């Protein structure tokens, strides 16, 4: 089962009861610290970071909350226990700020917008994006399936999928790769 972290509740608990906007670096840093504390207690492979009740998200806060969280858990060399993240309830305006900071750091994440299908956002090359979309469409797929979709060699598809897995954008179960929202142990 995934672990749900309601960012708005963390904001109100951590900073002030009446705040619903994620603005300023100090606020972002305080919220991230609390999210990190919850992650320490979590045993779930996937953590859902829920922005549904967050009003405004500015660039500085997106950098503190989203980018720094990913840098710690989903950048080049994540550890075995690092979770996969699904960012739920993100609006178009949240995405404006999030995409800007992801591009700056060369990061990417899986988002579940409040009014649309799940998508991957941030710094990905076109083949990585096609591979991720194939996994998203199929739910679970072998490298050969992704190779078909992307029009590349199976060995190249394997490399791409491993790269996506290291960035915590897809999971692996035995010889198949699956979305971060699928239940199941990561190999």
């Amino acid at each position, binding site marked *: 089962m995934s672990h749900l972290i309601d960012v708005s509740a963390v904001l109100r608990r951590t900073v002030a009861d009446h705040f619903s906007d994620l*603005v300023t670096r100090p606020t972002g840093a305080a919220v991230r610290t609390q999210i990190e504390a919850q992650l320490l207690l979590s045993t779930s492979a996937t953590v859902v970071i829920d922005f549904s009740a967050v009003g*405004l998200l*500015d660039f*500085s806060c997106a950098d503190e909350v989203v980018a720094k969280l990913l840098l710690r858990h989903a950048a080049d060399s994540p550890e075995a226990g690092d979770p996969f993240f699904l960012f739920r309830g993100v609006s178009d*305006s949240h995405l404006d700020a999030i995409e800007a900071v992801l591009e*700056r750091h060369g990061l990417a994440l899986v988002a579940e917008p409040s009014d649309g299908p799940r998508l991957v956002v941030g710094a990905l090359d076109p083949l990585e994006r096609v591979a991720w979309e194939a996994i998203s469409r199929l739910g679970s797929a072998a490298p050969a399936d992704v190779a078909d979709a992307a029009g590349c060699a199976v060995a190249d598809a394997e490399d791409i999928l491993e790269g996506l897995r290291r960035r915590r954008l897809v999971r692996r179960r035995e010889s198949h790769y699956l979305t971060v929202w699928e239940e199941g142990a990561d190999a």
Partner: protein
Amino acid sequence: MTTVITVPPSLDDTSFEQVLEQVAHFPPEQKILVDARHTRWASPYGLTALLTLAESRIERPDFAAPEIEDTASYWARAGFFKYAVEMYDVHGHIPKTRAGESEVLLEITPVRKSEDVHTVVGRIQQKAAEIIQKKLNIDAKATVGFAMTLSEACQNIIEHAGRGGWVMVQTYQWQKRLGRRVVVIAVCDAGVGFRSSLESAQGHRLGDRWDDAMALEEAVIRGVSRFRETGRGQGLAGIRRYIGRWDGKLSVRSGTARITIVPEWDDDEPLAEGLPNFPGAQMQITIPEKVAAK
């Protein structure tokens, strides 16, 4: 001896330079009287810059309030006198204001700590939505970006000024220069300014050409921050993105220079150097009404 500094009849970012040209001749210990008796109109930049001017002085200055009742009344509703009396010895009639009667989008508000930014952003959102959609004919999506821009502009004070500053937002018909309605954000402080802020960065090296103009280019154009983490400098980059999307104008003055991201509808200089020295940083963001394409 008190030196009289005359405030122009119409006070905005451009004409405020006339004030600074007069003040530049007198050290901060010199007593000055800022004479606004004949001033008829002031932009958010003009009003916040007047407060910043007082903060830049060691000897508490005098201030002569506008004689025109409507002007003084508007300045009062904008919150100017509420703070001016703390920094100036104010002379002349100060109209009283009643709570809730202000039509100003965001009255002059001090920005001293992170919580102040939350307050500013919280207060602006509802009013901004109304103005941006109904009066500026801009997409509703622009409202959130507007609040984000305001947030980042205010944070610039907290992160870099080393002291508090002021913010004000207003919308008005900019008949003379543009013939359209605009919404204007002014954020002013009398802090350390961009050059000193960047100089305080660890490992910062002074190049052959290092001055206020260069510091502004580094910060505003190249997104350099005194903090060396990769994610820093996002705020000004975000502001630039916003004004680019909505055909806005950004100008930032610090020390002796001013850098401007100039839209097609304006003919301001991209970089002005050799201006009278004024401490801190003064930022103005102008978003114009959208006109239908011909």
